């Protein structure tokens, strides 16, 4: 019970102090869970990062679930995950109650018109950052270009095509590419 409480409190602290989401959280999680508390090893932390990046959902949530589960099974996973979400949940809940009324004030509305422009830039910036980190092979570059053009067309012409369909197509392309590589014998099937 003491460990469950500790998991909850530790992850609430992590949840409260990480602005900027995912990757900003990783360094704090590493400092607290690997260096200070020694709940997991550095290698495990690396493995969690890989799992977190390959699974849907926010990285911080994935880490909390993994570490909680590792230390104390399902109750531990629940405590850590609940803990990491709770602070931002309360803060956002509070904001959601008054943002609409807040926006009726003229200068606040003006500020948010400016902020709306920043959001577009931030999203493009996130994409640029991911492109830099991406493994650049012919296949990934082709998929990226097709996905970007398709998404652009979907937005402009308000087509009813889901991004999930695009992602499924990309996954199939990745699988086919892998099978072709195996056939050519460049890569041993594992």
């Amino acid at each position: 019970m003491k460990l469950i409480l500790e998991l909850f409190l530790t992850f609430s602290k992590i949840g409260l102090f990480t602005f900027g989401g995912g990757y900003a959280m990783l360094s704090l999680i590493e400092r607290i869970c690997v260096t200070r508390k020694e709940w997991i090893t550095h290698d495990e932390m690396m493995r969690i990062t890989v799992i977190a990046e390959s699974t849907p959902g926010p990285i911080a949530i994935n880490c909390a679930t993994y570490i909680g589960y590792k230390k104390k099974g399902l109750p531990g996973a629940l405590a850590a995950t609940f803990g990491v979400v709770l602070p931002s949940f309360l803060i956002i809940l509070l904001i959601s109650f008054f943002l609409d009324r807040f926006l009726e004030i003229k200068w606040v509305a003006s500020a948010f018109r400016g902020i709306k422009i920043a959001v577009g830039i931030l999203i493009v910036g996130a994409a640029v950052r991911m492109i830099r980190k991406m493994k650049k092979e012919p296949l990934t570059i082709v998929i990226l270009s097709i996905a970007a053009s398709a998404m652009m067309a979907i937005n402009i012409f308000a087509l009813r095509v889901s991004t999930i369909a695009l992602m499924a197509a990309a996954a199939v392309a990745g699988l086919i590419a892998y099978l072709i590589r195996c056939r050519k014998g460049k890569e041993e099937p594992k």
Partner: protein
Amino acid sequence: MILLELLAGFLEIGLFSFGGGYGAIPLIREVVLSYGWIEEEKLAYIIAVSESTPGPIMVNMATYIGSVKAGVPGAVIATAAVILPAFLIVILLTVLLKKLVEKGAVQSMLGALTSCVIGVILATGVFMILTNCIGSFTEIAVDYTAVILTAVLGTVYFGSKLIWKNGISPILLICIAGVAGVIAYGV
């Protein structure tokens, strides 16, 4: 039944949001607009609020939208729904399939999936910037103030990355943009 809609919509978002943080934004946008929960205009504000507060962006957006649509129960359900798929998948992976993610076929699919997500994010960002500047594509009306603000803020954000490694933080850019908005659009 709004609670059921929130549950279904955010389960879908949680399940298909690869790529962390901004990766979920195109899908959230699609789901939110298709259910008609919030108008496009508001969505950008929610993204800004989610980015400027602690916690993962997609979880914050779920809390916000849930709360606006159905109060505290809505917030609880949307938040739980967006987290649940990730929670279950991580537990499944730790228990059963530790080696699965290291397999070549899975890696190859994930690589393709990630490039697709990056393309989708890029297009979403570019589209948002374009609609800020020219209104909708069916009725083009250029907003010159927005064009100038985009140029200035874009230069500040990307320029700062050239000068020092991490550049200015998203929160700082949002603050600058807020001040610029007040100056440009008046009090």
